[in-house]
């Protein structure tokens, strides 16, 4: 008996016609997952480390408040004064009731300042806060 080698009738080569579709799918995923919120940070800070930390589930609810080494406070794209925090946060809170304020405070900061900020947040009724911290290994 003789064996004949089977040969495919079609020409070899991978069809690339569906490539754009696949990439579009990837693209869509990233477009949906992206939150375009790149802020310039004017203050210098190093976050403290902690073990018992949670992830913030919904990033769109988060508003950041930075406190730098020098004690300057930044909200969004501006350096603000302590007395302005209440107003700014109140407006944010009204616009978005389930607001979470993420406090990104330098680890060498003093508690006095943090307490003042917390008091301002309480007056603005922005009660959900989150002390930003890095995971300790």
């Amino acid at each position, binding site marked *: 008996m003789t064996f004949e080698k089977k040969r495919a009738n079609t020409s070899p080569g991978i069809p690339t016609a569906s490539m754009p579709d696949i990439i579009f799918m990837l693209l869509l995923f990233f477009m949906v*997952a992206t939150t375009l919120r790149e802020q310039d940070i004017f203050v210098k800070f190093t976050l403290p480390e902690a073990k*018992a930390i949670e992830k913030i589930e919904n990033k769109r609810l988060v508003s950041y408040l930075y406190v730098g080494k020098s004690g300057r406070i930044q909200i969004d794209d501006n350096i603000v004064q302590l007395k302005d925090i209440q107003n700014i946060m109140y407006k944010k809170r009204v616009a978005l009731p389930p607001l979470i304020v993420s406090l990104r405070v330098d680890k060498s900061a003093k*508690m006095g300042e943090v307490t003042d900020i917390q008091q301002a947040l309480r007056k603005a009724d922005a009660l959900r806060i989150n002390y930003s911290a890095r995971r300790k290994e």
Partner: protein
Amino acid sequence: MLIKKKNRQGGEFSTASMADITFLLLLFFLVSTNIDVDTGIGLALPQYVPPEEQNFAPISKDRLAAISVNSNGDVLLNKKIIAIPQIKENLTGRIRSKIDLPKKKKLVVSIKTDRQTNYDLYIRTLDQVKGAFFEVRDEYALNHWGKKTHSSDQLTKEQMQELKDKIPIIISIAEPEQINK
């Protein structure tokens, strides 16, 4: 003169570069996405009450764990000096003993700091307290349902609610004291 209509061959445009274009877009979104998740210690602040309306509800001693951190970095737990890494051990026992008590008898942890206290110390203390609560919750979940709380998608809503009822995390940030100027 006779103008001849050009004979066009099938009205198609090449889609070969489509992939390249989409790759470019994809790259842009890849670069601009920040995947890194925000992590931190969550806390709910108490509602603001003007100083003149504040009334201090007394809390019985057996359900209160009062932690104070002073400006030198000394930590007191119920008026006894303690090292920060020991807070967790100290609290887990007390939280565990109160699992089956009614809601009004659960442990309340109060943290008090000085204005000059270092923020890092405060976070380390808070971390220990949270860690203690999480550990007891983990134990409870493991004993009852054989699951850990970290895989929260595995716990059903009722189970999560039971955990919250049995081991509520009550952390009280002490009201800042008025300084008489």
